[in-house]
């Protein structure tokens, strides 16, 4: 690593990776978004995106992603809060995280059995007298399974920010006569908002781009932006339109990251 030259040789693999797998794919997606189905340069795809069909799809994709994020948060926040109160909280946290390490496909497959016509859910419904219902391939099953899959991802950042919360602040709030609810809304929640934001970021963007679950669990009834991209690339072979939707998904992703603050996800 003496001279500049040896260093740039040494860096070559990483540089190549960045050029070929980060910069080139982005440019290619943008380039393809300007090609119509015959490979001619045009703005037709963008025009098409602003027709009611695609706008409606974008809107419904947002609506589903919103519902999934909302219910994940609704379950994850109390869970994370209660986890911090347990004795071996790191161990419990690990146990909550373990299901997220299990192959996504297997979890989706499990729900095919659970929610199916003769599955456990219908046996339960019959037992309490409601009777057999179509559960699989409905909006409900899609949202339920998605929430199931995203909950650990939502719990983790919230748990971390709750864990960093200084407990003396809660004592102070109590001493000053705040009720439990006031302590929560005025002290705990505002101080853990960063965790909530990164949780939303981790859940909302993938929720927009789900395509496997929409096929397996929602039975093609739900079309998300991800499903539309997959459809255009692998089924109808209209790569230009697929790339255009991808461009919009990337723009939406940046917008959400800007709103929720630029926190790293995943690790």
């Amino acid at each position, binding site marked *: 690593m003496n001279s500049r030259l040896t*260093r740039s040789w040494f860096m070559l693999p*990483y540089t190549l*990776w960045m050029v070929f797998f980060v910069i080139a794919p982005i440019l290619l*997606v943008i380039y393809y978004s300007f090609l119509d189905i015959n490979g001619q340069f045009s703005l037709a795809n963008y025009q098409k995106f602003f027709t009611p069909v695609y706008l409606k799809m974008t809107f419904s994709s947002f609506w589903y992603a919103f519902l999934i994020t909302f219910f994940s948060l609704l379950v994850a926040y109390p869970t994370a809060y209660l986890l911090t109160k347990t004795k071996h909280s790191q161990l419990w946290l690990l146990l909550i995280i373990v299901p997220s390490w299990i192959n996504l496909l297997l979890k989706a497959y499990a729900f*095919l059995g659970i929610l*199916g016509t003769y599955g456990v859910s219908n046996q339960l419904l019959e037992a309490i007298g409601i009777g057999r219902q179509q559960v699989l391939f409905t909006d409900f099953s899609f949202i339920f399974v998605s929430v199931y899959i995203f909950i650990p991802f939502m719990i983790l950042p919230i748990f971390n920010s709750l864990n960093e919360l200084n407990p003396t602040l809660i004592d102070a709030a109590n001493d000053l006569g705040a009720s439990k609810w006031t302590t929560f809304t005025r002290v705990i929640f505002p101080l853990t908002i960063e965790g909530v934001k990164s949780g939303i970021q981790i859940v909302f*963007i993938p929720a927009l781009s789900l395509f496997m679950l929409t096929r397996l669990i929602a039975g093609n009834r739900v079309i998300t932006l991800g499903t539309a991209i*997959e459809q255009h690339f692998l089924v109808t072979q209209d790569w230009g339109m697929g790339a255009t939707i*991808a461009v919009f998904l990337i723009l939406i992703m940046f917008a959400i990251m800007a709103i929720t603050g630029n926190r790293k996800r995943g690790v």
Partner: protein
Amino acid sequence: MANFFLLLVFFILYAPIIFLIFYSFNSGGTMYHFESFTLDWYRELFSDVRLLIIVLNTLVVALLSALIATIIGIIGALGIHAIKKRTARNTVLSLNNVLIVSPDVIIGASFLILFTVTGYKLGFYSVLLSHIAFSVPIVVLLVLPKLSEMSPSLVDAARDLGANSWDVLTKVILPYLSPGIMAGFFMALTYSLDDFAVTFFVTGNGFSTLSVEIYSLARRGVSLNINALSTLLFLFTIILVVVYYFIAQRQKINTVGVRK
């Protein structure tokens, strides 16, 4: 009441997995009526040569991609660490993170375009390259903190004692980074094993990994082979988690990694 809620969440999180494992021993062939205990599905699984080849493919892709991604990632981390200018460094870092924040569908679609434009045949190598590509940034992110925590006087001392650049790298820097490298390799391994979306786009015909295979099986409906397979995968995952837990303990990472 509080504990009840927590237990309920635990129950819901684990129930589907236990459900799968339970019915993998069902002789009835369905996931709703348990007839009697059998190991037939496991026997069938182990006699299914095609599936075993796919398992092997998956493992080969995971190990190779994790290994290569770790090497590239270490190089990347060293390079980013060496950049002194703050803005340049942040730019490289944000480019590094693009593949971590991008949805899988976009990574898959853009790689498909890339391989098609360059005339690269879809199959083992396109899957391997894609897995290397999306694992590199996570290795960089796990190695980089270790690198910035390392005291520069270590390198100076080694140089004063007459070590050449290669010695400094292999005998001082890399051993110091090893916990980060281990964690990075492990994360890359699990990313690869778990990936469905990206592989689905770039796999073409003739080559398949486990996730893609489970998807096509599941689209055809329930078959208890998959249950038997998931039991084995579950055990494998548990082993991986335990290994990772010990690595993390040694490295004193106080947060547990979540999958992408």
